[in-house]
């Protein structure tokens, strides 16, 4: 395999991994606080359609990303209010959010179908960004660098900061955190909002980095894969980075299989298309095999908070 092809694969891989990485990072923080938000796919779709629409209307992708983040937060607040203030079933509410996000994005995106926008290209000077070799480092959209910075920030926040410690305490033992005086509900609201913002930005990656137009259901299940990745990464940000890029590699192979033909033709294209989803199942099986008995999930994950006083 020549160097050009390798570099091209790396560039595509990184871009393909970014939305999943962003969404999964957000969900990681949410789950660390003890909340299971299955609505990631819905929030991503909301972010994708709003990000697209605002970028199309204003011509400014930065504003588009900001709008996508806000949209994600707004969507997540519906979930937060239902599960945190009204103690509704988290699994069902997350599903409802996904269905809502799908419907909302389909409706909102209708007038924008088929209209193209500009890809959100690298902000580095063209000599570096388009350089045949250095493009591997400098050729990416700002969203990619943002995602990598966020991996470090999330890790630092959770492991090294006091606020992160409180968040983890809320996720591991909500009643203890409550008796010390921390607002469990407040912390979880914040975490869910962060998850919503990240999912919204992740959604905006689709029209801004990958395919510069809006199609219904643009995210095609990546939100669900992000959920699986959080489990795969055992709730650790750097493992999440590895998992996201592994997934990006598989997704990239599908693209190259379609284009390259040759030895890839032995399998029908539908098999390649199924590969990301089958790989996700495989990944889930592998982590279940790996774990001997105890799980590293936050102890209060998915349980509504009921103060025991």
């Amino acid at each position, binding site marked *: 395999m020549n160097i050009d092809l390798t570099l091209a694969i790396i560039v595509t891989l990184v871009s393909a991994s970014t939305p999943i990485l962003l969404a999964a990072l957000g969900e990681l923080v949410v789950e660390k606080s003890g909340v299971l938000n299955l609505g990631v796919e819905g929030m991503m779709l909301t972010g994708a359609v709003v990000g697209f629409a605002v970028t199309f209307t204003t011509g400014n992708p930065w504003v588009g990303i900001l709008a996508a983040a806000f949209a994600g937060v707004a969507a997540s607040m519906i979930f937060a209010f239902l599960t945190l203030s009204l103690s*509704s079933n988290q699994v069902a509410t997350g599903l409802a959010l996904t269905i809502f996000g799908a419907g909302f994005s389909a*409706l909102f995106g209708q007038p924008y179908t088929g209209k193209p926008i500009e890809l959100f290209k690298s902000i580095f000077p063209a000599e570096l960004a388009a350089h045949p070799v250095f493009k591997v480092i400098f050729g990416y959209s700002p969203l990619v660098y943002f995602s990598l910075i966020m991996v470090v920030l999330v890790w630092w926040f959770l492991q090294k900061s006091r606020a992160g410690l409180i968040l983890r305490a809320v996720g591991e033992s909500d009643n203890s955190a409550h008796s010390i005086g921390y607002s469990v509900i407040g912390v979880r609201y914040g975490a869910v909002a962060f998850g919503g913002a990240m999912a919204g930005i992740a959604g905006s990656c689709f029209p801004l980095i990958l395919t510069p137009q809006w199609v219904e259901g643009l995210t095609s299940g990546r939100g669900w894969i992000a959920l699986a990745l959080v489990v795969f990464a055992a709730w650790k940000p750097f493992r999440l980075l590895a998992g996201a890029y592994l997934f990006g590699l598989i997704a990239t192979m599908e693209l190259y299989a379609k284009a390259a033909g040759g030895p890839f033709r032995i399998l029908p294209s539908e098999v390649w298309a199924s590969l990301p989803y089958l790989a996700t199942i495989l990944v889930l099986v592998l982590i279940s095999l790996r774990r001997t008995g105890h799980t590293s999930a936050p102890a209060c994950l998915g349980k509504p908070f009921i103060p025991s006083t």
Partner: protein
Amino acid sequence: MQLRLEKRAEPSRTMLYVTPLLAVGLTMILGAIIFSLMGFDGLGAVREIFLTPLTNSLKWQDLAVKAAPLIIIGVGLSIGYRANVWNIGAEGQYIIGGLAATGVALATINMTGWWILPLMGLAGILGGMAYVAVPAFLRVRLKVNEILTTLMLTYVSVNILNYLVFGPWKSARSFGQPVTDRFTLDQTLPYIIPGTIVQAGAPIAIIVAIIAWFAMSKSVFGFQIRTVGTAPMAARYGGFSANQTIWLALLIGGGLAGLAGMLEVAGPFGRMVPQFPNNYGFTAIIVAFLGRLNPLGVILAGIVLAITFVGGEVAQTTIGLPNAAVGIFQAMMLFLLLASDILVRYKFKLVSPQKLERIA
């Protein structure tokens, strides 16, 4: 005066039945407001989606046709959810069931006999069961979360459908269109009410729901499902195997979804096409919840959601409301149902300042 939430001594039965109605009613009100804000004709949308299918008698047969698969899948899911087993991949099991039935139909396309349709039905049920068996096995043996596995397989099932319909099963007579051969009369469901489009799927749905209600409320099996779902420890003391329950819950859900798939492909569709998946498997999740996980409630909830589907089509032609709007109404119903769930466990109380002082 302060409005407080006070926990009830025990969950309110009246609220259990009232909250779904409340959810639907609030959806209509909230939906009208939101859609008006978005620039559509809000009141018109609600009228066309919710009321016209009920008042226009021509639409009743559409309701029956749309409600049947929703009820069948919804019943299967409700049994599983009762046991705390979250099968989200009903859409995939529905597709595979339809494909299995199609396979039998294509293999017997040149034969005749009364046995073909039941064989297709069996194939549909077994196909759905086989497809859910993998997530079931992974859940029981390796504790892999069934939400993710069933969902991933749904995406895979769409690819399987596309492969078959664009490839080996493409009809030679279809001028290149990715569709299978049309099913023969022996392979299509009979029309139950002459002069309408209502086929055997509708009465089958009702029968399935009644059998399920009977099993869930009167049989030991139903007791097992409900106990494992609400009190797993007590269930273990009682000798109920959690693993067996998970298997049964998933197999029933998968089998019924597969049956619905067969009834759809042998009924309204009459052949397998790429447009076969129409989200019934996901809408059935809403049906199961709206029906309060009770098979009889699922019948009503299935009709309600069928109303939104039929109403959505009506609204598209009469006031130009995009079909996607229906999804928003359906999600809103689920949101509002989950939100009003709190009324089952808590009640609102007006507390006067004097009482507050006494408590403090």
